């Protein structure tokens, strides 16, 4: 297997995530897109770990998974909070402050 198989896959996933983050209005879907990006990173880390025969790659990925979970939790909490206050989770409506 080529190392780049995995890296390219990760890159593509990452950028699909980027697209989602930029193009989606729905906050939950933006969070989902972020998960795509983090998974891409994990694929990278694991692939490098396997390539280098270094356990650190996997360990790093584990940390990322854990923290991603925490982030999603916090993110959803914030989304819920916003939803409660303005009955919408459209990101482009949050523009009270600018300039």
């Amino acid at each position, binding site marked *: *297997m*080529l*190392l*780049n*198989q*995995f*890296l*390219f*896959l990760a*890159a*593509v*996933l*990452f*950028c*699909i*995530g*980027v*697209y989602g*983050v*930029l*193009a*989606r209005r*729905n*906050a*939950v*879907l933006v*969070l*989902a897109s972020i*998960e*795509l990006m983090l*998974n891409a990173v*994990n*694929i990278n880390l*694991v*692939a490098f*770990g*396997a*390539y280098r025969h270094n356990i650190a790659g*996997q*360990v790093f990925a*584990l*940390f990322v*998974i*854990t*923290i*991603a*979970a*925490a982030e*999603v*939790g*916090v993110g*959803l*909490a914030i989304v*819920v*909070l916003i*939803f*409660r206050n303005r009955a919408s*989770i*459209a*990101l482009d409506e949050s523009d009270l402050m600018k300039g």
Partner: protein
Amino acid sequence: MVAQNVVFGILAAVMILSAWKVVTTKNVVRAVLYLVVVLAGAGAQYLLLAQEFIFVVQVIVYIGAIVVLFLFGTMLTRAPIGRDTDLDNDQKWLAALTALFLVGVMVAVLSDAFGNTHIKISGVQRTADVANSMFGPYLIPFEVVSVLLLAALVGAIAIARRD
């Protein structure tokens, strides 16, 4: 080796397709379900790379926990189960451009760096090694993460709680 490459190819195609659906589908719940496919695919890739512990964690934490969280989130914010025409904003083209540009840069750099490098799998990564590492060199971050999770838990409750 060919088999592995074929498996990889199929998996990759499914993942990319699903990922694409995650960011384009008009249905929120479906998007989350497509996400499950991508996550599962990633897990499979880990197996392909003989990293079994992380595969397990991927399945349990992501598919088991995070996706459920997402679904909860979807429900709590009363997303329609059906099609929703209002999921995308008006900067799609800009988003696409940015993403394409970024992927272009990444791929170019990666192909320059690892053009023809092969991964040699010399055996399955043992979970014990992961543990040795986690509780050895990475003990301190591991402990700190516990605080982090606690903070996220407490904070998320405090934030999301109706008061």
